[in-house]
């Protein structure tokens, strides 16, 4: 077991409020994670995307001394890089190096974060990359992630969470290098900084890092955010796009996050209902395994971007506000309405019936072990330790395991009834022929399912209920948005 050394340096002087998380080990590898408690929620209202662009410019640009090309050349023989991730309230820079190269690597890492180059050509390149990420990679090439991000934007419309972390294309086109420099000077401070270090680093190295980052101005952390707007009726947005199949994301805000008394109970509910990329979840079983509707179906109580590329969530996406979300992977257009009905029918059953004692015990026991896998790499373990500091909880594995040991089925089912519901949902569909899908969704007509093989009578019987299941959608609550308008 690794030791978690958490040094909260509240001493007076230059390091006031800067926090340090260390996980020393005998590994030949060293992981560095530097997290500032600032992100897209701090973007000025007229400059969405500024936090992300600033971080990207540091991670993918030169330093005052070295051009970007020189930085890449120096990193190349070490097979190292500096990654960045910007979420609503966290900006993370991370990297891994062999201990052989620690001094040389850290010299670059330090200069990139503390002494950036602010070159116009780097700025232009990074800005183009960000616009192309939104326009091409996300909007053009990934219907599932697109649906998920549109869902978040809709749920938080009008609040600091209400835009994609990368911003909007029209805003990015107007942002200047000076905007980035000013954002950096205002928000990259000591007061909102967590330094994370793991692996086989020599002890003096930590002191060096502390000293280097203590030269930053004080800065400030994100304040308390306004609550998201409530949803009065189930509503749907169809993102119209020329694509083969129909991808859904469905959800609503919840006021539960790590550290909340109901978090462990909802974690059990989420795992039972739709454990990410595992075949044991209820949605996966009912939709894919029994009916062959698609490739997979999952549920979440925390933000989990890039789920199609990874099995475990990235750390350092800690947020004050989270949503409950269902991810229905692309379905063939003729079954699109039935699939949506089935997803909502299963959600309704979850809310009204909860978990059986057997299901509760099975899921609890699964999570008590599975949680170890979330921190199987040092980098992830360090990230989780930093998130635990944000949420004010002990080491995540211990937090989850000890809570599970005390948890009862009644607590889980009570938390489900309190925080989850099967109505007042935001639905997002990415689909071609949006008008046809709209007509289908607003109609109460049955959407019977046909199969290419015989099904057990209980499935056919259930289908007769599902095919008429009310989506609760009023025609005025269905909107079509052409994909070209998203993130503009």
């Amino acid at each position, binding site marked *: 077991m690794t030791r978690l050394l958490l040094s909260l340096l509240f001493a007076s002087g230059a390091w006031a409020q800067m926090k340090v998380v260390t996980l020393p080990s005998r590994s030949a590898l060293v992981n560095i994670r530097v997290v500032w408690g600032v992100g897209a929620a701090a973007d000025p209202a007229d400059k969405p995307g500024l936090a992300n662009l600033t971080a990207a410019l540091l991670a993918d640009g030169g330093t005052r001394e070295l051009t970007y090309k020189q930085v890449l050349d120096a990193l190349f023989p070490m097979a190292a890089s500096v990654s960045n991730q910007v979420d609503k309230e966290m900006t993370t820079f991370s990297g891994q190096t062999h*201990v052989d190269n620690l001094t040389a690597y850290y010299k670059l890492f330090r200069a990139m974060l503390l002494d950036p180059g602010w070159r116009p050509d780097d700025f232009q390149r990074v800005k183009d990359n960000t616009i192309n990420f939104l326009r091409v990679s996300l909007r053009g090439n990934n219907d599932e992630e697109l649906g998920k991000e549109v869902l978040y934007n809709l749920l938080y419309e009008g609040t600091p969470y209400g835009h994609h972390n990368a911003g909007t294309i029209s805003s990015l086109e107007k942002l200047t290098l000076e905007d980035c420099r000013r954002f950096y000077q205002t928000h990259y401070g000591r007061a909102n900084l967590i330094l994370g270090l793991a692996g086989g680093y020599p002890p003096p190295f930590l002191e060096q890092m502390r000293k280097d980052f203590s030269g930053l101005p004080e800065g400030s952390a994100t304040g308390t955010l306004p609550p998201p707007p409530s949803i009065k009726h189930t509503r749907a947005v169809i993102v119209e796009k020329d694509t083969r199949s129909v991808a859904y994301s469905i959800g609503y805000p919840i006021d539960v996050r790590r550290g909340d008394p109901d978090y462990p109970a909802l974690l059990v509910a989420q795992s039972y209902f739709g454990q990410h990329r595992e075949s044991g979840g209820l949605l996966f079983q009912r939709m894919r395994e029994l009916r*062959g509707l698609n490739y997979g179906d999952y549920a979440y109580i925390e933000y989990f971007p890039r789920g199609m590329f990874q099995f475990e969530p990235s750390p350092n996406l800690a947020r004050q506000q989270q949503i409950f979300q269902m991810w229905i992977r692309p379905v063939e257009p003729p079954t699109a309405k039935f699939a949506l009905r089935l997803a909502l029918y299963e959600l309704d059953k979850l809310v009204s019936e909860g978990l059986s004692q057997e299901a509760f015990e099975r899921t609890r026991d699964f999570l008590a072990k599975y949680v170890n896998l979330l921190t199987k790499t040092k980098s992830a373990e360090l990230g989780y330790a930093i998130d635990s500091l944000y949420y004010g909880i002990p080491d995540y594995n211990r937090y989850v395991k000890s809570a599970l040991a005390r948890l009862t089925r009644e607590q889980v089912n009570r938390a489900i009834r309190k925080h989850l519901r099967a109505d007042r949902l935001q639905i997002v569909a990415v689909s071609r022929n949006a008008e046809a899908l709209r007509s289908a969704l607003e109609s109460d007509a049955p959407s019977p399912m046909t199969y290419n093989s015989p099904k057990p009578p209980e499935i056919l019987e259930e289908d007769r209920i599902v095919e008429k299941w009310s989506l609760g959608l009023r025609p005025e609550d269905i909107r079509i948005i052409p994909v070209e308008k998203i993130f503009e």
Partner: protein
Amino acid sequence: MASNFAWLLALAGLSAAAATSPRVFPFAYTQEDLPNGLRLVTIPTDYPNIVALCIVVQTGSRNEIEPGKTGFAHLFEHVMFKGTEQYPPEKYEAVLKRAGAASNAFTSDDLTAYHTTFSKEDLETILAMEADRFQHLKYSPAEFKTETLAVLGEYNKNSANPLNKLFEVLRETAFDRHTYRHTTMGFLKDIQDMPNQYAYSLQFFDRYYRPEYTTVIVAGDIETHSVRALVDRYWGNWKRGNYRAAIPAELPQQGPRTNQVEWPTRTLPWLAVSYRGPAYSDTAKDMVALDALSYLAFSENSDLYQKLVIQEQKVDVLEGDNEDHVDPYLFTVLARVKKPQDVAYVEQQVLETVKQFRERAVSGERLEAVKKHLRYSFSLRLDNSETVALTVASYVALRRTPATIDRVYDLYAQLTPDDVRNAARRYLAEQNRTIVTLATRQAGGAK
């Protein structure tokens, strides 16, 4: 003081290891063959509590030799989760759940791999259950048909990404006979016909899910002898088969080929410049020389990257790739171009770079930087038992032993600038070349 002392010990251990062993694969592993032909590779690691099991079947889309059956190795990966008499799917799931296991599978051209990561106390349970499904898989035509729809769903979710289409067309254009002509997903028409192929699926299982095709890799917090005893107990009675697939050999390419893909929605244009390359080898230098060339000529620290991505900013993705394959595959340069009007220019720049590498040897210093990069990137990857098992799996697909890892990295260490130039001259020639571009369909084009 205590922790400082521990730190010094740890460092001493590292340097001693470095001084006595130049091996890039740092773990002491054991490789054993059971009488039935099954191979077991056990890799104790220092990462506590967790065990990663990866079962590699040396069968992938390369083995799909019959017309109309593309995508079958991948479909079979799905079917393997349909259960046995002893462990029907619900029970299989329940056991995985009790173990808190993360379980999945993947298929490529040359392998199908099933991997499960779990706590060490569940090793016997998981090994026994996996042995059962490899020997006693049983599924009905109805279950089979339903699973083919999940595969169609997978094709659907992949289809939003133009790169999948680009590689589909690239393979079809570059190969005439070899099964690398199709992707692992297979052709859409074959996927749509899968529900009718139940009988063939039984034959597929009978041919390839046999001990002589299979290697069990166990990495993590384990003891080798007790793993062997468990594998003997649960896998020892598995019957050897005798099927050998006749993979059609590709004939030499006689001249350059091109193709274009029209993409229905807005995207940036993609350019793929490919050459027929060599097969994986841990004895001949050509493959590793082309690997090195892919970094020297097209990686982030190449001159071309500096020119096209950083200075001129005409391209936002540039990479060279010389994937390991059992049979000769493709060396590919991939670029995403920011403006459609620059595609021809970027293509010309890629071809010009290839020409330079054929004509002139690179500096020894640059080659040394690539060698360092390759060794460090390999060791940075091995930071947990699961990636150790999965990394070994990718080599088992090629040579059925982790020993090939050190052999191939020894070859990298021996590479000279002349080796790189010679490989460029041999393989990166015009008659071996296929260029495919992908761009947004122009308005008014065929729907």
